[in-house]
């Protein structure tokens, strides 16, 4: 019973963070802030949702599989975000602050 | 209302199929045409799987306490079709690469023009 309540709270929180990540993806002004928003869904939302799901199992093989999925996602998703941001940087994309800086430089 | 619940799945599949069909016949770029073919193909897969679904059924893997299973036959047909589909898509893409080599373009009207010159 208590487990169920905790798991529900975790699942709702996970859904909330997924939603904020999605809103951020649409509303944020430039690429890097958007990657930041998307990686929120990758990390915290995954942890919350999968932990919530583990609490709902009978702690058998299913729970172990979920744990493996969690470990795997925690390894790969941040790497994907990192690689994305790094290759954007490599390709010459500037952050918002840097764009402002360079504009100021032009005006002077 | 039950009419819509009974058929909405098929209608959306038809919509997807027509979207793929439209891309195939209207796109000029060969890569996009292949994407369109793939969308068409996936919609056919979905049609088969929809036919195999039994309401209240479970995945066709024997487990305790489950009496109703979905139809395994469409799953088998589509499982192999997906792998064959990607293999044939690869042949299509390889042809596109060769066309690019030979004509320097993958836009349909452009290499047809070049063909007309020869």
């Amino acid at each position, binding site marked *: 019973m208590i487990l169920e309540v905790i798991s529900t709270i975790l699942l709702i929180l996970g859904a909330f963070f997924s939603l904020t990540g999605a809103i951020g993806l649409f509303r944020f002004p430039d690429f890097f802030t958007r990657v930041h928003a998307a990686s929120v869904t990758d990390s915290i939302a995954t942890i919350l949702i999968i932990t919530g799901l583990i609490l709902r199992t009978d702690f058998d093989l299913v729970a172990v599989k979920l744990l493996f999925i969690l470990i795997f996602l925690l390894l790969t998703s941040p790497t994907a975000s990192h690689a994305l941001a790094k290759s954007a940087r490599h390709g010459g994309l500037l952050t918002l602050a840097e764009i402002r800086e360079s504009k100021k430089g032009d005006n002077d | 209302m039950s009419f819509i619940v009974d*058929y909405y799945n098929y209608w959306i599949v038809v919509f997807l199929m027509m979207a793929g069909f439209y891309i195939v016949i209207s796109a000029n770029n060969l890569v*996009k045409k*292949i994407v369109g073919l793939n969308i068409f193909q996936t919609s056919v897969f979905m049609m088969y799987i929809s036919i195999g679904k*039994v309401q209240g059924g479970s995945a066709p893997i024997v487990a305790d306490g489950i009496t109703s299973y979905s139809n*395994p036959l469409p799953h088998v047909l589509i499982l192999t079709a997906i792998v064959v589909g990607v293999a044939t898509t690869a042949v299509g*893409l390889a042809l596109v690469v060769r066309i690019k080599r030979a004509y320097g373009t993958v836009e349909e009207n452009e290499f047809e023009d070049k063909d007309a010159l020869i």
Partner: protein
Amino acid sequence: MVELIDLVLLGMLAITALRVIFLKDLFAVVMLFGLYSFLSALIFVNLDAVDVAFTEAAVGAGISTVLMLGTLALTGRKEKANNHTALLPLLVVIITGAALIYGTLDMPPFGHPDNPAHQHVAPRYIEESPKEIGLPNMVTSVLASYRAFDTLGETAVVFAAAIGVLSLLGMPKPGGVAIDSGLKSHLVLRVVAKLVIPMTILFALYVQFHGDYGPGGGFQAGVIAAAAVILYALVFGLPLATHVVRPNFLKVLAALGVLIYAGTGVTSFFLGGNFLDYNVLASDPVVGQHIGIIVIEFGIGITVFAAMLGIFYGFAAQAERTNIQ
């Protein structure tokens, strides 16, 4: 509730397909296509087709997307604006769609247990296959035993497609000089790839040999194992990957898989059964079925692995050649 999830996913699919029509940036088109595959995999799970969903997620979203990106690298990522009118195609599509929708009205309602599709062979598979074959996963039983002949054909098609791609594009020469793949500086990526690749191969083996009991089997396992080597080639460069898995070795493997499959059929011939009748492989028919299924699934896995990786090598070799020029 299930219907609601289904409807939301189908709606997202429709939006994705519409977006693909209007986008001119082919890179985005290919990415949307990957998304489309993932969404359809989710729908397959929702419609109880777990094996199919597994295959679609591995093949559609994994291998297809990589191959399409490889093609884009060679052909350019922008679609040129075409100026002829799209009225005629639209008309054709609307008429065909209307005819098909009219046709669906005669179809049996979705998901009804009394539908004709569930009346003929399916009940036999569902009731008898656990006893006759002794495997919990009916999809594997049907795929590898009842419809083994069909699956042999499909495996041969995959093999033939690989030959087609290789004769069009050619294999990379093994042991070429490693040119900078552009990922040399991605330290994080390299470390994580080193962690992930062994796990992926282990998972492929699990899927290969656990396919009798849960979702999985040779097709999925072959694709996952190929994906592991593709990841290696993407991160560490093609020359290193061709050192690990040599192109000539792949050619042998691809043929070997089909041979193992057909050889099992011929063996059952000589033991007095029909082609691909596994009952005669052991004194107990159920054990014979089990042996036969494991062997031919292994054959499928080998062929699919070699075919997928060979196809990738073909595209990668072309890209490498263009880079050098």
